């Protein structure tokens, strides 16, 4: 092959350009059309994670029926840790769905770091609904300048779920009130655990995991990883250290089943097999426990309040409208309906996600649950939600929480000394967040 002359080289470049144009054009062949004309039929896309319960209980179908011309295209990702990164790339590319779910651990990130990517709901038909929520819920979704970026779905008030059959076998109280009477504080709760350990069948631990215990303790605090001014206080906040020490102590004493939540298949199996007798359960875990324990678990489980009757919150979500949406008005109408008290009550009864509007909370406060031995779950969770502190959320809460979860697992499962685990956690937080 000869070396091409300068002119030849130019033609080569031209030919290459032409080929690449052909490739590029053919690659674009599949793209969809532009926005729908105003007033015409509207297709709303909804992207959620986990189980919000809308699709499962026919709420989308019902909405479509009541609003001719509106069709809802729904997609869901199993867990938030896969859902959120994917959403971030789509948000920046302007390709997000019309309605997107936001987990409470992400809402601070949304409000502080990306308000321009979301729609201010005050300017939409959803604006009127903002006032109906428990106080902290909408405050957490409001930016410094007052824009509201998400409408609350559920909240995560706390309780302790326990196997009354196993507690009975170990000679501990099985009735919620009697059990609660013996747990005035977290140390009391662990003292009960020591009693259980002495009398319990082999291969059955008192609690599922140290990190679950940690999350429950920390869920009752107002100030966790950040202070009011948004400063990171994780290393100096005595509440964090104390929760860590209690949980690590329980892990070291062998009171936990050493099963990583949502990760270890043994954790899922444990709900049925009884590898652990208690678990700190936010309301949204009710549905999860039922699913994993199956029908055979019905009547074996029960729920009581956190030690000392404390209120707390762990999890809960929002629905937001990305700024790129072409159908903001219709999307706002949809999320207003989905999060309205009537629908929140239905979702609670179906999957256990606890309502975040004051109206709906009043309506469900009398609910009991047959699976949980007829426990007054409505009262337990609404009491927990009313006495829960208004938590200060921060943009890296999720990252820090994960660091502590791993660290506590290393204490219970690998025998790392709590002091070393704490030092390592602090280093990891600085490495990743600082």
């Amino acid at each position: 092959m000869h070396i091409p002359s300068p002119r030849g080289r130019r033609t080569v470049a031209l030919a290459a350009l032409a080929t690449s144009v052909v490739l590029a054009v053919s690659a674009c062949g599949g793209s969809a059309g532009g926005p729908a004309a105003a007033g015409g039929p509207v297709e709303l896309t909804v992207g959620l994670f986990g189980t919000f319960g809308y699709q499962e209980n026919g709420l989308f179908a019902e909405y479509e029926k009541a609003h001719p011309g509106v069709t809802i295209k729904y997609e869901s990702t199993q867990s938030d840790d896969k859902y959120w990164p994917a959403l971030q790339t789509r948000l920046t590319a302007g390709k997000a769905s019309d309605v997107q779910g936001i987990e409470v651990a992400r809402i601070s990130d949304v409000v502080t770091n990306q308000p321009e990517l979301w729609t201010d709901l005050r300017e939409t038909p959803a604006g009127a609904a903002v006032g109906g929520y428990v106080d902290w819920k909408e405050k957490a979704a409001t930016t410094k300048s007052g824009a509201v970026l998400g409408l609350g779905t559920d909240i995560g008030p706390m309780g302790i779920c326990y196997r009354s059959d196993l507690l009975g076998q170990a000679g501990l109280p099985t009735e919620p009130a009697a059990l609660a009477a013996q747990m005035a504080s977290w140390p009391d709760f662990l003292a009960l655990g020591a009693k259980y350990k002495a009398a319990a069948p082999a291969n059955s631990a008192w609690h599922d995991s140290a990190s679950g215990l940690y999350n429950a303790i920390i869920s009752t605090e107002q100030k966790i990883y950040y202070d009011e001014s948004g400063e990171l206080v994780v290393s100096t906040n005595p509440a964090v250290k104390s929760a860590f020490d209690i949980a690590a102590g329980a892990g070291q004493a062998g009171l936990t089943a050493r099963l990583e939540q949502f990760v270890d298949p043994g954790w899922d199996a444990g709900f049925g097999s009884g590898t652990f007798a208690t678990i700190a359960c936010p309301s949204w875990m009710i549905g999860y426990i039922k699913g994993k324990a199956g029908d055979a678990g019905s009547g074996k489980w029960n729920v009581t309040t956190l030690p000392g009757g404390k209120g707390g919150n762990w999890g809960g979500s929002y629905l937001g409208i990305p700024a790129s949406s072409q159908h903001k008005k219709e999307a706002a109408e949809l999320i207003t309906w989905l999060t309205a008290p009537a629908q929140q009550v239905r979702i609670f009864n179906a999957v256990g996600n606890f309502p975040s509007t004051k109206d709906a909370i009043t309506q469900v406060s009398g609910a009991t649950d047959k699976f949980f031995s007829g426990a007054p779950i409505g009262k337990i969770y609404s009491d927990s939600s009313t006495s829960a502190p208004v938590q200060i959320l921060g943009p890296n809460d999720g990252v820090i929480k994960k660091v502590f979860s791993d660290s506590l697992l290393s204490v219970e499962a690998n025998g790392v000394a709590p002091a070393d685990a704490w030092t390592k956690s602090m280093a990891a937080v600085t490495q990743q967040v600082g």
Partner: protein
Amino acid sequence: MTLSLHRSTRVADPEPGVPGRPPWRSRLYALEGRTAPYVYVAPFFLVFAAFGLFPLIYTGWISLHRYRLGSSMSWVAFDNYAWLFSNPQFWNSLWKTITIGILSTVPQLMIALGLAHMLNYKLRGRMFFRVSMIMPYATSVAAATLVFGQLFGRDAGAVNWLLGMVGIDAVDWRNGDWTAQIALSVIITWRWTGYNALIYLAGMQSISQDLYEAAALDGANKWQQFRHVTLPGLRPTILFTIVVSTIGASQVFGEPLIFGGGQPTGGALGQYQTLGLFMYQQGWTFGQLGRAATVAWVTFALILVLVLLNTWLARRRERAA
């Protein structure tokens, strides 16, 4: 190619005496002759540039920036590299990649060699065994890992049940440091042994049967035949599988991710966090794309060094032989 070359010669020297075509036309032909070969090879180079070279270079460019998912890039020069090399988590994941790599590659290639040797003999149902070799490879990583994850369960896993039969206490495979790495290596070995065995088998079949006959006549037994005929004949094949397995081992990702329940942390101690998982965690859990790109480039450099080292060793051995 031949066609275009032939054409270009024809057009380049128009036969004298033949009434000439208009000059613009012959120039056009000449142009076509000179450019056509490039147009023919262009699709490969364009696709390679778009999907191979560009991502590689752009990843390097991103690694010089602070780039949080969902925000814009800002130039930080080599800060990400400084951060990486001072991060104990990186060294941990590098070390785990190496140990898991050795734990899985060495037994994998040895078993594959043995299996291939056996399959090379005339055997009843040989076809069946050969096909079944490739079955694990055809299984999806996710399915295999999920099943093995259950087998290695602490409370109700089949492996612990078997160990229990011979009086060994239940092992917490997932949470232990070496146990988790062994469990992972078993999955990787299970999946890739058959694939390598088939490559060896192909290599073995290209070794002349005469050599075996001659060896047999000289009184060599099966083991001696394997050592003195099969192994030397397979040397290039073995080198190939070592290179490919080394690259594969440095990129292990799916197995530890799914073994860890979809979390890229690789266990409480990071005991099975490979470089791939570490990169994924930086990019998609923490949204630090700049740092993730840095990990990607360092991994790339590492693979390059390993491959060069391999080739150098092989050359030296060849020269020595």
